[in-house]
């Protein structure tokens, strides 16, 4: 019965390996490296030899025994198995030997060699089952093959996500387009970007209208329309029309180079979990070796000396060898960095650059979030937030105000003009008079319009309400008659409130808002968004102090994140456990100082980032717990002789496969909207 199962298993190995080979060659076009192809061939050859030998029993070989040389058949049989053993395990023998030579004894090659050679020796002694030794090697090689294939494939997939590198830039000379290396293009050069091409260098459009896909930079999938005068960042894909761009920066300083550098750098910063596994693996392998040694000698010696029975060295030796097979730390060592890498890759796809797996880990433990107000929670630009004009004439009054203000460079004037939004017909405006610090008077369609603050209206002797509102008030009067007012303030981003609610839901305990603005404004915005703690009227250095104080209040396993737009808050970004810079693709200082860079300024990205890091961390922990528990269970079962070497290798390979597949799950990211 057992033999049939083994036969079927061997046949399956041959079929699956062959099928895998065909698949990888045909479908995956050259994904297999030469080394991998060699391994496949060796697996096939040796399993076919072993499979064939299964049908020739030891008795058949024994018939070859001749009188002069009684063991001829036995030796021939051993030789056949040895050939297949060397074919499949030759390189591992070599590696193990080299390891010993280089004083690096306890690696997995060594374990496999000891286990399989031990099994072989037992089989020679008993003229029994040589198959086991070869099978252990075959399984081990299949495991290694699968691992290198799966890791290579996910590595390519993840890298492809972040593959923003433009290969060339088009320079037009005398009507001919010439492709050049983007690194050789000097700032100020005009380059052409054809539809479908990636913008190679940051610059400003000098000619052409198009829409660009910025998803590689921001994760935003809706194309952005661009025209002459607009800035386009490298890494965007030009979708519809030919555009010409005057480059603003060199290739090395462009957005795309910076992102690539960040991503490359990210993977070399290791997290605590990774360090844990590295340290673990360092002690684990030797520990298991010594445990195996103890298992081989202690129980039989006890049995012999104390109980006085037969020692049964063979049984215990076999169990010790099984122990060695199980001990290979591969699944752990591979799945953890892969999990983090996939997490960083997935975050990158969503427009969140995480500078290293240690920050991914910290992000998942974020309990306190400190946010800058202007530019982070609010848009950082002034907008008309309230209009209190006579309802019936509202449109017309706004038009008057806008026309009167149309030539003023003041931010308040500009926000009124943009609130109106209509065409400005300058021929309707005469006698413009602006008094700095007060307001503007002008004749619109012949009517005298006055827009300005309270002081201005007092000066003009026009009666107006005195108001207590948050923001800046601009009063309006037409022909000396008071008509109402508008409030201009920095408006809250449409996603801020939702983001803060979701942050709480995601487990953030405390939200803090810092701002240099007045108390009234800060309180209002804070209340609107549901923020726990508000600090207002701060100088830039106060922000740093408050972050420092908050850092002292948190508990040991909690992390504090500071979110800012990178303008004058670089010190706070660096002081916090995690500095998150928002919409910072333009600011070098922010990219340098931050640990996490959000490529656009949507506060929902903070939520997405935390979710990704949580998911990634839980996958990593699942893998650690899963791999370790399967190992320990098999170790215990192996020690009691319940698990044989076959199942041990199978468990080992199986755990690794599952762990790798689980790790790749971290790559898929749900975007928060």
């Amino acid at each position, binding site marked *: 019965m057992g033999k049939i199962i083994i036969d079927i298993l061997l046949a399956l190995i041959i079929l699956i390996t062959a099928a895998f080979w065909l698949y990888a060659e045909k479908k995956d076009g050259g994904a297999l490296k030469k080394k991998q192809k060699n391994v496949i061939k060796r697996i096939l050859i040796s399993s076919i030899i072993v499979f064939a030998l299964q049908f020739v029993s030891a008795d058949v070989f024994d018939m070859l025994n001749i009188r002069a040389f009684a063991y001829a058949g036995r030796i021939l049989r051993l030789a056949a198995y040895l050939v297949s053993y060397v074919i499949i395990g030759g390189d591992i023998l070599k*590696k193990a030997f080299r390891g010993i030579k280089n004083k690096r004894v306890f*690696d997995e090659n060594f374990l496999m060699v000891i286990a399989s050679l031990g099994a072989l020796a037992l089989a020679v002694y008993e003229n029994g089952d040589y198959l086991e030794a070869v099978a252990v090697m075959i399984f081990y090689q299949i495991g290694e093959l699968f691992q290198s294939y799966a890791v290579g494939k996910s*590595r390519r997939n993840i890298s492809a996500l972040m593959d923003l590198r433009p290969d060339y830039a088009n320079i037009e000379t005398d009507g001919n387009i010439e492709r050049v290396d983007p690194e050789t293009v000097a700032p100020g050069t005009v380059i052409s970007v054809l539809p479908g091409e990636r913008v190679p260098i940051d610059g400003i459009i000098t000619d052409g209208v198009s829409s660009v896909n910025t998803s590689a930079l921001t994760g935003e999938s809706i194309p952005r329309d661009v025209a002459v005068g607009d800035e386009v960042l490298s890494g965007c894909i030009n979708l519809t029309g030919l555009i010409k761009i005057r480059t603003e920066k060199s290739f090395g300083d462009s957005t795309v180079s910076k992102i690539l550098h960040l991503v490359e750098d990210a993977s070399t910063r290791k997290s605590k979990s990774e360090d844990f596994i590295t340290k673990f*693996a360092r002690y684990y392998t030797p520990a298991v070796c010594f445990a195996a040694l103890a298992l081989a000698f202690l129980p039989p010696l006890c049995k012999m000396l104390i109980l006085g029975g037969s020692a049964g060295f063979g049984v215990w030796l076999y169990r010790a060898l099984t122990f060695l097979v199980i001990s290979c730390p591969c699944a752990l060592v591979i799945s953890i960095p892969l999990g983090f890498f996939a997490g960083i890759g997935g975050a990158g796809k969503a427009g969140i650059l995480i500078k290293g797996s240690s920050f991914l880990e910290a992000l998942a433990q974020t309990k306190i979030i400190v946010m800058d107000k202007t530019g982070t929670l609010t848009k950082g630009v002034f907008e008309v937030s309230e209009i209190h004009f006579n309802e019936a004439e509202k449109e017309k009054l706004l038009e008057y105000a806008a026309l009167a203000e149309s030539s003023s460079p003041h931010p308040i004037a500009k926000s009124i003009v943009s609130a109106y939004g209509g065409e400005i017909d300058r021929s309707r405006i005469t006698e413009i008079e602006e008094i700095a610090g007060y307001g503007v008077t002008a004749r619109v369609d012949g009517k005298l319009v006055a827009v300005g603050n309270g002081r201005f209206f007092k000066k003009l002797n026009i009666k107006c309400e005195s108001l207590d509102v948050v923001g800046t008030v601009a009063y309006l009067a037409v022909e000396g008659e008071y008509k109402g007012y508008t409030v201009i303030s920095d408006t809250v981003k449409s996603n801020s409130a939702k983001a803060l609610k979701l942050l709480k839901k995601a487990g953030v305990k405390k939200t803090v808002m810092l701002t240099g603005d007045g108390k009234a404004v800060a309180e209002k915005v804070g209340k609107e968004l549901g923020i726990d703690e508000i600090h207002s009227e701060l100088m830039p250095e106060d922000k740093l102090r408050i972050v420092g104080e908050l850092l002292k209040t948190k508990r040991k396993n909690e992390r504090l994140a500071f979110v800012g737009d990178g303008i004058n808050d670089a010190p706070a970004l660096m002081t916090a456990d995690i500095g998150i810079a928002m919409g910072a693709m333009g600011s070098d200082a922010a990219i340098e100082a931050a640990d996490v860079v959000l490529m656009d300024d949507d506060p929902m990205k903070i939520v997405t980032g935390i979710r990704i890091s949580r998911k990634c961390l839980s996958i990593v922990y699942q893998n650690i717990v899963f791999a370790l528990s399967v190992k320990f269970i098999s170790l215990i079962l192996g020690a009691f002789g319940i698990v044989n070497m076959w199942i041990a290798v199978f468990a080992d390979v199986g755990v690794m496969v599952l762990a790798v597949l689980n790790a790749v799950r971290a790559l898929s990211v749900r975007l928060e909207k």
Partner: protein
Amino acid sequence: MANIYEIEVDCANCANLMEAAIRKVKGVQKADVSFMTQKLKLELCEGYNEKQVLKEALKECKKIEDDCEIYF
């Protein structure tokens, strides 16, 4: 100033071992090997020749995995 080099390494555990080995090479201030991106990030101490140190590092790595490669 840290430089990043391509490194060819086949197993994750070996990458960790290589990292430890490279850190012990004379002239190396800081070294990180990333198995996932197959990159080596190396920071040298003052006054050491880059090529020399990398050569030494490669030698150490070959002891761990004889078919590994660092491209410099």
